[in-house]
């Protein structure tokens, strides 16, 4: 067999994955966020955001304002939460935030870690929401929550790569 041809074929397949991953990492560096695009998983921000909306984040703001919608993660739990800033306190080097979901009856104190009273704007935020696409992210919810859909998609992808020559 021709090793060069095989390597070239392997590369064109590998590019599909590597380029997607590199674009994702670049976006992360540009926005200074480990997860620059997130999908809304809960209805706690209705009617502003519904389950399945895609949010684009930016994490290079110096301060968050009251009324901004931010995404944060509680240490030890890797689920990003999208809520609105209800209260903020800041001095020259630090800003503390209290958040609340528009559709929740109470603020987020109960969601924070034990003894945590505020979010630190510098360390706890994943980013603040700058743009969104409605509903398109529902595909990822289907993939993570529905096993049949997941394997169905994988199967379809395999078949399509087998059937296309170039």
């Amino acid at each position: 067999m021709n090793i060069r041809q095989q390597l070239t074929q392997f590369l064109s397949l590998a590019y599909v994955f590597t380029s997607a991953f590199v674009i994702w990492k670049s976006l992360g560096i540009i926005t200074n966020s480990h997860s620059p695009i997130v999908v809304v998983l809960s209805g706690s921000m209705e009617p502003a955001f519904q389950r399945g909306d895609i949010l684009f984040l930016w994490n290079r703001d110096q301060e968050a304002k009251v009324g901004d919608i931010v995404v944060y993660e509680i240490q030890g739990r890797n689920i990003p939460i999208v809520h609105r800033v209800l209260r903020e306190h800041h001095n020259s080097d630090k800003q503390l935030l209290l958040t609340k979901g528009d559709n929740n009856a109470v603020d987020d104190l109960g969601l924070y870690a034990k003894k945590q009273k505020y979010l630190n704007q510098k360390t706890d935020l994943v980013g603040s929401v700058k743009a969104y696409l409605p509903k398109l992210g529902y595909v990822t919810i289907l993939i993570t929550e529905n096993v049949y859909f997941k394997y169905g998609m994988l199967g379809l992808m395999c078949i399509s790569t087998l059937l296309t020559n170039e």
Partner: protein
Amino acid sequence: MSSNKKVNLNSVADLRQNTDDNLPAALEGLGYEESFKLVDTKIALGLSTVAIAGGLFAIDKKYDFKESYWITVAALAVYFVISLVMLVVNNQNKNVKYIGYSSKGKKITIAAWTTKYDPIYHVKVTFNDDPKSTTTAELPFAKFFDLTGYFSRNAFSKLLSSHIEKIEKKDI
């Protein structure tokens, strides 16, 4: 490597692919030896970008975002520089399918392409990287694929050699 595969005669892309695959064998018959320098460079560049992306993935799994921020920036910078080099190399050698040397050390570069709907194999031949020696030919696929879709190496070699010899004569 010549592949004796039956080709779908209705697909220009398949016809071109198959002809590309047969170019080295045809030129070997004409006394040229293939040079793999360009292909090897491309593969090496490609593999290094894939390696960087793989390394980034490992770092991403092992360390969190803030710990790995600067190494990620560095890796991405290297990745984009290599990608840019690849882009330039590919652009300068657009459609190049074969580079070889004759026994006398004369370099031949063959670029080939097709348009979307015409079953014609466009060939551009350059000798010794001299743009003045460049000539193009249009070889209809019908002349070197038989009715059932098999590639005929003899017919193709004859077409190609008559074209190359024409230039060589003009050259002298």
